[in-house]
């Protein structure tokens, strides 16, 4: 009995204050992928490397469009690894929940 009390007191409170107090994910965490439109060359390397296939490259008369859905993203960071121009990076952002799927898409365009 005393041992249990001792252990309880020694441990103290461990409960997190989230979400009242924001908590950042540790450095190196693979969260929401961010695209940098000025760096992207629309080469399509990330499209080829994505395991669940949630990055698409479209070309039409107006220009090129890169669409990334982090809805089915597995946050593996392959896109970041293969990108020749550092145009995609996985950030520490993890609060991604959304009521619509459309919010879970990032689109960048380059007009001709």
């Amino acid at each position, binding site marked *: 009995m005393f*041992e*249990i009390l001792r*252990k*309880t007191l020694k*441990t103290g409170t*461990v409960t997190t204050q989230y979400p009242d107090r924001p908590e950042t*994910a*540790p*450095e*190196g*965490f*693979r969260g929401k992928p961010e695209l940098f439109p000025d760096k992207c060359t629309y080469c399509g390397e990330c499209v080829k*490397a994505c*395991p669940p296939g949630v990055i698409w490259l479209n070309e039409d008369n107006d220009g090129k469009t890169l669409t990334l859905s982090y809805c089915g993203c*597995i*946050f*593996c*960071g*392959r896109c970041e*690894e293969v990108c020749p121009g550092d145009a995609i990076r996985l950030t520490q952002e993890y609060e991604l929940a959304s009521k619509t799927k459309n919010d879970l898409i990032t689109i960048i365009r380059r007009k001709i």
Partner: protein
Amino acid sequence: MKSEYTDSIRKEFGSVILDENVSHNETYLTVKRESAVKVCDYLYHHFDAPIVSIFATDERRTDGCFKIHYVFSLDKEDAFIIIKINIDEKSPVFGSITHKIPSANWYEREIQDMFGLVPKGHPDPRRLINFEDWPPDSYPLRKDFDIRTKPPRVKGEYVYRRVEGEGVYEIPVGPVHAGVIEPGHFRFSVAGEPILNLEIRHSYTHKGVEKLFENISIDKAVFLAERVSGDNSVAHAVAFCQAIEKIAGAKIPKRAKYTRTILLELERLYNHLGDIAGIATDVAYAFGAAHANRLKEEVMQLNESVTGSRLLRGMNTIGGVRRDIGGSEEIILEKLSSLNLDFSELMELLFASPSVADRIETTGRLYNDIAKGLHVVGPAGRASGIVRDTRRDHPYAAYGELAFDVPVLKSGDVNARTRVRSDEVYESISLIEQAFSRISDGDIKVNIREIPDGYALGYAEAPRGETLYWVKTSKNMIERCKVRDPSFCNWLAIEYAVLDNIVPDFPIINKSLSLSYSGNDM
């Protein structure tokens, strides 16, 4: 491998061996189809070699037939013998070995479902993977089956074993359970409280993983391997990567080997802590459960700060690892030393508690002969006196250079399984400490550009036990990938472990065996 085994087989069965082929520590012997039962029986009983996997391949395009592989492990030699038979499409039957080797049961039923090859003489030829609404003559792992097809649902019935008698009734449980666990169906036949019979029915989480392996590129397949059984991500990824590296003949850098070892042991730590927390929860020892859960969470947070993933995902790749964890040495070692003390205090209190002892001692006994017959692996097997550990018997990563004990107990009850895990926690801590003291500077991966056509076994000791991959590559793609999760071996054990126990003890027994549904169903 010592040739005495192959010599002895040749002497005994010389006339039935059609082909012989050795690669690495694997010896492939193709025998006549009708002799497979005899040869397997000989290997199993004469050499005491456990059968670790049975799987089929569809090689109709290249060799004009299906092939079945029976993989035997020679633990003392760190070698494998693979018996192969060819099966013509026109006569898709093979002799069942289940009546000689009980652990073959589910493998043969799996082959029947996925390839349409019929195990003749199988004592229980019901469906295993495909449900009753799956159309006949449609076999997912045949090469002419397109992964995108959605076969129509047909009418069918699955018949459960029945126990009849006065006062006997059935309790169906699942697939959606009361707790936060995976889906599966359990059907108890009980008279009063004691369980007379339990039949488990799985495959609710069948996601077509093996077929998916054949449809994605090899570098992406590592991430799929991580998702076969989520809490054993590292072991699956390592086993898969090792198979590919074996095929490519690549030697990975020492630093990568040690990093993999550290990751594998971190995975074992949080799994074992979680299992102990689960057992404490199920025996209503709330104090122990809260603390064990806290320790598990601490390790998972450590994982996240070191690798970016709480489940250690995304670390392994063909040829090594993706991130160097050298910078985290201090925080890992610091955390482990505090964990060591914290955990030992907790275990002392847990095992001293009469209410815990009362619930876990003699509960859910899995006797050694049954465990051996079913080829129960991992901590569950070691708690029933089975002295096997892939890390020691088939050393991989850096395990050959590190010292560790393999805790084995004989009583086979929940208590033994809890204690084996608790002992393994200390071994894991010591292994990580040793690994950090011996790790050397250098590259963390080698680049493997081309993967030649070939096949090989990859294996790792997951927290649940021996995990086995057999991969065959062709033109830089995967031709066939057989995944054998430890749970595929261990699930049947629960039908025996619960006998004569009362229904309220089922959750503890289930938890103590720590079985993955996803790894089993794939």
